[in-house]
């Protein structure tokens, strides 16, 4: 075997290595002392093939290959581009982006600067959810530290508090005009985005990974990973787990090992929600031994999405939990597209009625029908995400739905009383 130049073995955690996350933002000097300086112009020459070789997938939820996205922008024929570092993180149960920005702002900035150099951008917009106070403060201070040393113009834009504000077209729309509602595609953002310029919208975690790949190469990224997968990912564990919160995992780690690593479940589980409110419910027995990585999950109709992993304890009702989520998704519709406005409202209200044991005749049939009807009928994929979650709930909690609807009885009540 040919001897290769030495591959830096990046451990786990890597995005969150260094001082404890709870200490807040790592300053620029400490960041560079720890990781070395990234020279965007220099690193930009190699970064697109390196990203492609790394296999890095976008971490905003859609899991689009990052290298392919950057290449498409870099090879365009039109003028200067814009990079949007997307840290809106409107997903309520996800905390990984805000945590990353609050603790390692310079890794995000490095990645954005590298992206800007690679795609020929004249501006970087850091788009950070305004309710994430620690992340906003951290990014603002870090940008002030860096301003002199960054070549493209940079802007910090605070995203409004809204689930859809982080959707790529909504982000660009807000940056352009203060309206965080998605727009109809085409035009694609990569052709006409911020200020009409070709725009790369990339999640902040993806950018942070790119910053490490730009320093150490694709093989370093791939030096972690289990069960055939490569790399690491930030996930947010919530619900019935001993130590909830944000963790960096090796991709391909089984769900069981991820949860065990966080102290294990606090109760037997009624279900697991993977990928946030755009994701899907699973029976814990079906998903426990599945590697947390795109390919294996896709084979089972799941995705890591934004990395949110929610554990529902067996004394909680999946119908109630789903009613809460669907009510939220209905309220968070941007209100532009009829099928999303009416369909999600109907689904949310009807699920709440079933959960409250006030189901009418035919409610479950209506739920199934609306769920199959809303997907694909909107400017953005908000209805599709909500419908996928609802469809999984009707499957995973079929017995709970049936019991609520038919007899007005929650299957979980007995368990709850046993605990109390």
């Amino acid at each position, binding site marked *: 075997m040919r001897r290769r130049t030495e591959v830096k073995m990046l451990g786990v955690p890597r995005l969150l290595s260094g001082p404890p996350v709870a200490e807040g933002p790592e300053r620029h000097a400490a960041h560079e002392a720890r990781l070395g300086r990234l020279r965007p112009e220099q690193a930009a020459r190699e970064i697109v093939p390196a990203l492609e070789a790394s296999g890095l997938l976008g971490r905003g939820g859609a899991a689009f290959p990052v290298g392919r996205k950057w290449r498409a922008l870099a090879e365009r024929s039109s003028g200067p581009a814009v990079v949007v570092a997307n840290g809106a993180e409107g997903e309520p149960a996800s905390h990984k982006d805000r945590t990353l920005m609050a603790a390692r702002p310079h890794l995000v900035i490095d990645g954005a600067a590298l992206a800007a150099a690679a795609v020929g951008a004249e501006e970087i917009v850091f788009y950070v959810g305004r309710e994430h106070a620690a992340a906003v403060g951290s990014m603002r201070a870090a940008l002030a530290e860096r301003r002199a040393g960054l070549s493209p113009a940079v802007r910090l834009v605070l995203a409004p508090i809204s689930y859809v504000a982080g959707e790529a077209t909504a982000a660009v729309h807000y940056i352009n005009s203060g309206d965080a509602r998605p*727009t*109809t595609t085409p035009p694609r953002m990569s052709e006409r985005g911020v200020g009409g310029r070709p725009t790369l919208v990339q999640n902040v975690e993806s950018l942070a990974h790119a910053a490490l790949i730009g320093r150490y190469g694709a093989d370093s990224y791939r030096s972690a990973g289990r069960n055939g997968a490569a790399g690491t990912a930030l996930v947010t564990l919530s619900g019935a787990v001993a130590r909830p919160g944000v963790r960096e995992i090796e991709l391909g780690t089984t769900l069981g090992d991820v949860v065990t690593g966080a102290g294990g479940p606090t109760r037997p589980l009624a279900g697991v929600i993977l990928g946030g409110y755009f994701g899907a419910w699973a029976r814990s027995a079906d998903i426990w031994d599945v590697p947390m990585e795109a390919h294996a999950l896709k084979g089972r109709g799941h995705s890591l999405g934004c990395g949110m992993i929610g554990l529902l304890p067996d004394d909680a009702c999946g119908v109630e939990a789903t009613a809460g989520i669907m009510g939220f998704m209905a309220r968070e519709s941007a209100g*532009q*597209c*009829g*099928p*999303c406005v*009416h*369909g999600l409202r109907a689904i949310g209200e009807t699920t709440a009625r079933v959960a409250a044991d006030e189901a009418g005749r035919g409610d479950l049939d209506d739920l199934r029908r609306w769920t199959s*009807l809303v997907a694909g*009928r*909107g*400017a953005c994929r908000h209805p599709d995400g909500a419908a996928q979650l609802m469809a999984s709930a009707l499957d995973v909690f079929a017995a709970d739905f049936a019991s609520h609807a038919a007899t007005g009885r929650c299957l979980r009540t007995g368990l709850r009383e046993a605990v109390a």
Partner: protein
Amino acid sequence: MGHRLRVDWIRCDGYGLCGDVAPGLIDLDEWRYPVIVPGAVEPSRLHDAQRAVDCCPMRALALERTEGGARGVRR
């Protein structure tokens, strides 16, 4: 080469005239928003499809040419 109906969901206000004009190509949900029947528009129905496009008060419906027949058929 085939044809496919496409809705601009932001423009569509649920008048539902398209579904009245072109049943079988366009169903309506209970709020009178269109549900496009999957598949390419049969050549014999192109006239109906175009009428549905023309009657939309919001100009939210378009009849598009698809690259090859197959893509349109699969939706």
